[in-house]
Structures are given as structure tokens and as C-alpha cells.
């Protein structure tokens, strides 16, 4: 089992001033660059510490939001490519359907892979609906653009005999010739976050590792199962390392301490979905049938029901408690024994997975608390993960 530490580099000092939307429309005067610089450096310090703790590093990106100040996922990767020496670096990921220039993505990933001497893992994300507005990309052909960008980036990173031509539906280049070529051959491992069995099957067909988040006890098993079945169907070798699960993890010397840390990290879940409803479901992002149903719901209802308790009841993420999150399988919290027991139960329930994406920092959890959280996990939980068999 590989473990990855993930933080959204939240700019939480702005949160008290936000109400109906934490994204898209909030003015950047709420961002104080001096406070922001301190925050960036502490988050980077926490990731750098992971190199000593044996925990791999995961970044992501969002735009125009105080919940995630990492607006360019490859920037922390670039810093950490030099600052770390051992652990692997995953961006989960790059919104390639929202970036206008896939060749630039290929260049960023290739350069990172060489500088890190082959420690990069490449995530491609379709992106949540409220990323459409900041990117101003057309939601009605996002999927086609995503897969064309995917094909182009991979071809660009694996072609080493000079320029090739690309005249597709969405992208046009007469001389694709990416320098440098990546360290890992033919290219760094590919990841995609998914939220449904159908997306899992698309990834399985291509041998991409899938990462799921917020899918919990109820929604994870069918997604993993769809992946396994599709992989078998198309003859892709199936290993647990094709499957990754993201959980919020708070571990402490006492149960109370672990749960207190988890409670602070959980502010990620409580804030990240607060978005003005008009940005929740841009036309064409979902299928016409899904959007038709969403029309019937109250404003913002489109993403309702994504967070579910173990018995399938919807949970309001804004008010979710640690106990509810643990029950739902979204969070593992308590002493190292508690966390391991919860993780093992979840692992068995979903049929196993090879990567644990650990949100070890979130919300207002301080630097000292984050270091303690990661260190204790590394010391007391990480060595036991071999018992799970992957």
C-alpha cells in the first residue's frame, strides 16, 4: 500500500468573510499575499517532511477559490521535485479539458519527470463543474476535449523522432515536438479521479489508475468493481495499484486528539462544496437526462446525495461530524489502532486498493498539528499497512 499526503493549500483566513460561495466569484482582495506566502511555505514544508516520513506527495488544483490556493498543480510539484529525493509526486490533477494548450501540459510533466529523476505520476482530471467558469471552457464538449487532450499529451510525450502533425477536433498543431522527453518510459504513470462506474470503466480501458474521493462506504464498491470487470474484459493486468482511495485522516496519541485533528481537516469537506448554485451544473457538463432531473431539484441540488452514510442516507457535508464521516468511510480518525482498524474494515469492504490518498492537512489544522499527524501516521500506521496484503 502506497500512502500519499494531500492538502489543498487552503487559504482559510478568508473563510470567515465568505457565506454563499467559497468559489468562482469571491474577490481576491480577501487574499493577503503576506499571509498567503506564509501558508504556501508551511504547506510546502509539510510536503517536504513527507520525504523523511516515507509518505508520497499529492497535489491538485482549483481556481478562483479560497478552499484551494493551489491554482497551478505543477508549481508545488516543481519545488518539491528538487526539495525531495525519495518519494513520488502525484498531481491529481491537471484539468486537461480546461487547459487550452495540451502541449504545455506535456512539457510541464516531462520537465518535472526529468528533474525529479522519474518520480512523477500524472493525473488528468475532467474537473468539477464549477471549474468551467474560471477556465471559460465549453462545458458541452468537455468530454471530447478531455480525451483528445489525453491522446495528444501521451503522443507528445512518447514521440521521439521529431515533429508530428495534429489536426483534431479541438487542438491544432503542425509541429508537436516536446522537449525534454520524460525520464520514465514510455511515460509517467497515469491517473484519473472518477466518481462513477462509467468513468471507472473509461480509465480501466486505458490502464489508468483511478482515485476516488467522497465516495465512501456506499459508492466506492461499485466503482472499484466496474474497474476490475472492465480491466478483465479488455485484458488489462489488474493490480490493487490501479485503485486509490482518498480519506481524511486524523491520528493522535489519544482517540480524542485524533478526532480533534480529523474535525479540523473535515472543514475541507464542510467548505469545498459551497458554491453559488448557478455554477453547479453548467449546461452540457452532465448528460441531458441528468440535467433534466436536476432541473426538478431545488437550486444547487445537482450534487446533492454525493455524500452518504453507511446505510445510504444523504449527509449534508456542511454539517458533517467526525462520527458521521467515519461511519461513512470518508474519514479515519482516532488512535493509530483506531485508524488502522477503520482502514482495514473499509479496505475489506471495497475489495482492496493499492493507494491511500491521505488528506493529512485540511482546513485550519495548524502546521504543528499537521506535522504531528503525519509523523504519528508514519511511525504507527504506515508500518502496519503491509498486513493488508498490498
Amino acid at each position: 500500500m502506497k500512502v500519499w499526503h494531500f492538502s489543498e493549500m487552503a487559504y482559510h483566513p478568508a473563510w470567515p468573510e465568505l457565506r454563499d460561495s467559497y468559489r468562482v466569484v469571491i474577490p481576491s482582495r480577501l487574499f493577503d499575499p503576506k499571509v498567503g506566502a506564509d501558508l504556501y511555505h508551511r504547506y510546502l514544508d509539510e510536503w517536504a517532511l513527507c520525504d523523511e516520513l516515507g509518505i508520497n506527495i499529492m497535489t491538485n488544483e482549483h481556481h478562483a477559490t479560497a478552499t484551494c490556493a493551489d491554482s497551478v498543480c505543477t508549481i508545488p510539484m516543481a519545488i518539491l521535485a528538487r526539495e525531495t529525493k525519495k518519494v513520488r509526486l502525484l498531481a491529481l490533477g491537471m484539468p486537461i479539458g480546461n487547459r487550452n494548450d495540451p502541449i504545455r501540459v506535456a512539457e510541464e510533466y516531462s520537465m518535472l519527470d526529468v528533474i525529479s529523476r522519474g518520480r512523477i505520476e500524472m493525473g488528468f482530471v475532467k474537473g468539477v463543474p464549477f471549474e468551467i467558469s474560471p477556465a471559460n471552457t465549453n462545458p458541452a464538449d468537455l468530454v471530447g476535449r478531455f480525451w483528445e487532450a489525453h491522446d495528444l499529451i501521451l503522443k507528445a510525450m512518447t514521440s521521439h523522432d521529431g515533429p508530428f502533425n495534429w489536426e483534431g477536433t479541438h487542438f491544432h498543431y503542425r509541429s508537436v515536438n516536446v522537449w525534454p522527453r520524460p525520464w520514465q518510459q514510455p511515460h509517467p504513470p497515469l491517473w484519473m479521479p472518477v466518481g462513477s462506474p462509467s468513468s471507472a470503466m473509461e480509465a480501466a480501458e486505458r490502464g489508468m489508475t483511478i482515485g476516488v474521493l467522497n465516495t465512501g462506504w456506499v459508492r466506492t464498491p461499485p466503482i472499484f468493481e466496474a474497474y476490475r470487470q472492465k480491466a478483465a474484459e479488455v485484458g488489462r493486468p489488474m493490480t490493487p495499484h490501479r485503485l486509490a482511495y482518498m480519506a481524511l485522516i486524523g491520528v493522535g496519541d489519544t482517540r480524542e486528539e485524533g478526532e480533534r485533528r480529523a474535525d479540523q481537516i473535515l472543514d475541507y469537506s464542510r467548505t469545498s462544496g459551497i458554491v453559488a448554485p448557478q455554477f453547479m451544473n453548467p449546461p452540457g457538463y452532465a448528460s441531458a437526462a441528468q440535467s433534466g432531473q436536476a432541473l426538478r431539484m431545488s437550486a444547487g441540488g445537482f450534487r446533492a446525495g454525493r455524500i452518504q452514510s453507511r446505510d445510504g442516507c444523504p449527509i449534508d457535508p456542511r454539517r458533517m461530524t467526525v462520527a458521521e464521516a467515519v461511519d461513512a468511510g470518508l474519514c479515519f480518525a482516532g488512535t493509530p489502532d483506531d485508524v488502522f482498524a477503520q482502514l482495514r474494515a473499509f479496505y475489506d469492504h471495497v475489495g482492496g486498493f493499492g493507494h491511500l490518498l491521505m488528506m493529512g492537512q485540511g482546513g485550519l489544522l495548524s502546521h504543528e498539528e499537521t506535522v504531528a499527524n503525519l509523523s504519528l501516521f508514519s511511525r504507527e500506521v504506515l508500518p502496519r499497512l503491509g498486513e493488508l496484503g498490498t
Partner: protein
Amino acid sequence: MQRIDIGEVSLEISIAGDGRPLLFLHGGDYFVQNRAFLDRLAQRWRVFAPRHPGFGATERPDGFRTVHDLAYFYLDMIKQQGLDDAVLVGASFGGWIALEMCVRSIERVGRLVLIDTLGVKFGAREERDIADIYALPTDELLRRTFFDPQRWVPDYRQLSDEEVTAIARDREATALYGWRPYMHNPSLRQWLHRVRAPALVLWGDNDGIVRPDYGERLCRALPDARFATIRQAGHYPQIERPDEVADAIEGFAGAEVKR
């Protein structure tokens, strides 16, 4: 609604009435609410009222990606259906299609009627000529769209699966054709001099999506156009004031106008 084949495309269309042909090109949303207006027009004309390819119950045809595709498609359609000396009426997004048709060919267009039309950029780069319907809070969007939103916005909970899916497809197609550049073609303005058919530009007094002064600018940019407003109407005056809009069209195009 019936279907007719135009090339590879199966077009949803209602055809009613007798007389000179009139083609109505609808806007991006509130398709079924045009019914009273179309019924009234059918008392005088033979009314062709399609639901655009990619809208309603029709999947978007392969290769249809821009408003240009719709313009060429409807030019094919009026030729194939033998529409001659037609009254071409476009509302909102449909007006944009009508303009794109007319800068290409007015061969079969006798009269052009543009209702709260978009598609042209007049203002400076930081000016928003056309309200961003994808960023406005719902309440404000509805207030800008209708003079009386309560009366015209349907209760979606009462609609069938088929109906809500068709509306979602309308919105998806509108987004596809109009997302970027936003609801306009940057090149269109320079070719408006080619729209040599006599034109009537009608505007809802209370349109908060595209303001009446935009309509006046559009009118001035056309070689032979007159401008009139419809009282107590928003972006879709033909929905809110079907008789007033139909009266205006009849006054403009009702006379024998064979060119």
C-alpha cells in the same frame, strides 16, 4: 411536431397554416412557450417552426459545432422546402442564426424580423453587451428574462422526463454554440451590410439580457431596418406579448411584398 429530413439531419418541426412561408427560429430556452405566438402567425402565414438540430429530442448531429453550421443548415432547409420570398423571424439565439443566414444569402428571404436578437458585438472588450446567463443567480436571471417571470417560468417538477430532458438539451446546445465567444460571432458585425432584406427589429422594453439600446445599434448597423419596442416584455416578447409582436410583424410583412 413532425420530422423532415434535411441532408443527414432529421429535423423536428411543426408546419401549420396557409399563405406565404414564414420560418421562425427560436431562442435558446422556453421553446414550448412560443406556442400562442406561432398559432397566431399561422392564421396568416404558412409557419415553419423547427426545433434546432441538437435541441429538444434531437441529438446534435456530428460535425455541428458552430452557429455557421446552423446557418448553412437552414439555408439548405428553406431551399429544400421550396420556401420563397419567406418571412424569416428569429428570436434571441434564433435571430443570430437568421443574421448568419442573411449575410450569406438573402435569395429566399423577403422580410427579416429580429426579436431581441444577439450574435453581434458592439461594445468595448470590457463591456458586456449580452448578460452572462451562466453566471447570474437564478432569480436575477429570470427577472432579466421576463417582464413577468412568475407567469412564464414553468414548474419543472410538473414536467415529464421527456420534457425536462428536452429543455436540458436545448440549454446544452445553446451553450455549445454560444459559450465562447459568448453569444456572438466577432466577425459578424462587419458583414451586416450584406443583410439587404427589409428588416424589422423588435425589442422587449424590459429585456435585461440584451438591452433595447443594443437593438437600436443593431438596427443602425443593418442597411434597411426599422426598430420598435414591445411594452411589458422582457427577452422573449413573442412569448409575453404574442399578439403585439404578431401585429407588428403583420404590419411590416403582411402586405404583398414580392420583390
